[in-house]
C-alpha cells in the first residue's frame, strides 16, 4: 500500500522523513506529490534503498483554471512518474477527468468542487483515478468535516456506480499527518467505506507507479507494442 505525500519544500517534512515514517507504519511505498515549483531535490533511489520502501516521483498540478491546466499537463507529464492534478471547481474537475494524460484527480470535492455523473464517466473512460481525500476527515472538525464527509459519500456512490478507478490518500503535509494503513481501514469503515475499498485505493498508487514506469521504459512503444527479446538478433 502506498501513500502520496507533499514533501519539503511543499510540505514540512523531507522525502526521507516521510519514507522513514511510512516504512515504520507499514506502507510499501510513497509517491512524492509536491507541486512543480516546490519539487524536492533528492535522489529517490538513495532514499528508497536506505529505508527499504519504494519512492515514486510525482508532481501535483494546482492550476487555477482549465487553460492554465491544459498547458501545464503537457509540460509536467514527462517530468514525473505520477501526475496528479488538483480539481476544486466543477469546470476543472471535468477538464482533468477528460485529460487522458493525468493519473489522479486530487481533491475533487474540496472548496467549491463538485462532481457529477459526467465527470465520473469521463474519468472512468480516461483511467483518471479519483481521489478520496481523507485530509479533512482526519484533521478538521465540525461543519467543515461534515461537508468533507458528505462530499466523500457522494463521490463514493458515483464511483461505485460507474466502477471508476480511485485512490485514497490523507494528503499529508508533514510526517506527523501520516496514518498507518490499518488505521485508515478502520476510519474508512467508520465513515461508510468497505475495508477492501480503502485497501484498493491505497494499492492503486502503487499500480499507477508500476504502470507508468513500464510505459516510460525504453521497451515500451505504445499500448500493445513493445520491443521484444529477439530484435537484436534479427
Amino acid at each position, binding site marked *: 500500500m502506498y501513500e502520496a505525500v507533499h514533501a519539503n519544500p511543499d510540505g514540512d517534512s523531507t522525502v526521507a*522523513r516521510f519514507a522513514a515514517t511510512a516504512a515504520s507504519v507499514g506502507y510499501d511505498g510513497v509517491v512524492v506529490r509536491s507541486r512543480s515549483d516546490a519539487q524536492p531535490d533528492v535522489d529517490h533511489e538513495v532514499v528508497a534503498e536506505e529505508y527499504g520502501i519504494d519512492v515514486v516521483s510525482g508532481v501535483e498540478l494546482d492550476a487555477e483554471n482549465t487553460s492554465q491546466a491544459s498547458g501545464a499537463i503537457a509540460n509536467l507529464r514527462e517530468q514525473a512518474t505520477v501526475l496528479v492534478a488538483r480539481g476544486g471547481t466543477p469546470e476543472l474537475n471535468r477538464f482533468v477527468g477528460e485529460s487522458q494524460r493525468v493519473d489522479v484527480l486530487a481533491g475533487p470535492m474540496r472548496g467549491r468542487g463538485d462532481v457529477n455523473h459526467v465527470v465520473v464517466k469521463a474519468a472512468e473512460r480516461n483511467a483518471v483515478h479519483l481521489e478520496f481525500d481523507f485530509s479533512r476527515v482526519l484533521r478538521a472538525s465540525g461543519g467543515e468535516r461534515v461537508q468533507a464527509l458528505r462530499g466523500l459519500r457522494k463521490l463514493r456512490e458515483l464511483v461505485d456506480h460507474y466502477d471508476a478507478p480511485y485512490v485514497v490518500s490523507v494528503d499529508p503535509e508533514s510526517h506527523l499527518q501520516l496514518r498507518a494503513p490499518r488505521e485508515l481501514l478502520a476510519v474508512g469503515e467508520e465513515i461508510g467505506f468497505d475495508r477492501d475499498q480503502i485497501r484498493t485505493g491505497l494499492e492503486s498508487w502503487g499500480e499507477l507507479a508500476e504502470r507508468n514506469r513500464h510505459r516510460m521504459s525504453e521497451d515500451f512503444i505504445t499500448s500493445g507494442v513493445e520491443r521484444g527479446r529477439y530484435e537484436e538478433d534479427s
Partner: protein
Amino acid sequence: MKHLPKHLRPRWRYLAVELEAWPDADVSQGDFQRSVWFAAQNLYGDTGSADADLRVLQFSFEDGSGEALVRVRHGEVERGRAALACVDDVRDDPVRVAVRGVSGTIRAAEEKYLGRPGESAAEASVAFAGETRPAVRRGDLVDVDSEGGYVGATNLDC
C-alpha cells in the same frame, strides 16, 4: 463499591500506541486523554464513544516522542483505532498517533509493544538546505528548526 464478579466484568483490549510530535511539543496524559475523547465523540457520537470507553492508562512523552497504553472495550478495537487516527493535535501541538499492537492484557501489551528504549534526543547543529540550523536529533531522525517552524528530516538530508 465492591468489584464485580469475574464473569460480569467488562472485557478489554489494550492498544499500545506510539506518539510523535515536534520537539517543542508539550503533551501531558490529561491533554492526550481529552484529545482521544474528543476524537471519539466527534467521530461516532456520544453513544459510540461511551461504548468504546477509551481510556489512557499509561503515558510517557518526552522531546517529541512518546508512547501510551489505551484501553478499549473488547469488540470495539477497530473503532478505537479509528478514533486514535483522528487525533491530529493535542492542545494545538500536531501529533502523529500510530497503533503498534493490540493485546488482551496490560502486561502482554507492555512486554510486546511498549518500553522500547527510544533514542534520546540531543540538540545539534546541522547543515540543511544550504544553511546551518539548530536541530534536535533523535537517532536517525532530525527535526530542523527552520524559519517557518520545524522541518522533519533524517540523517540523509543533513
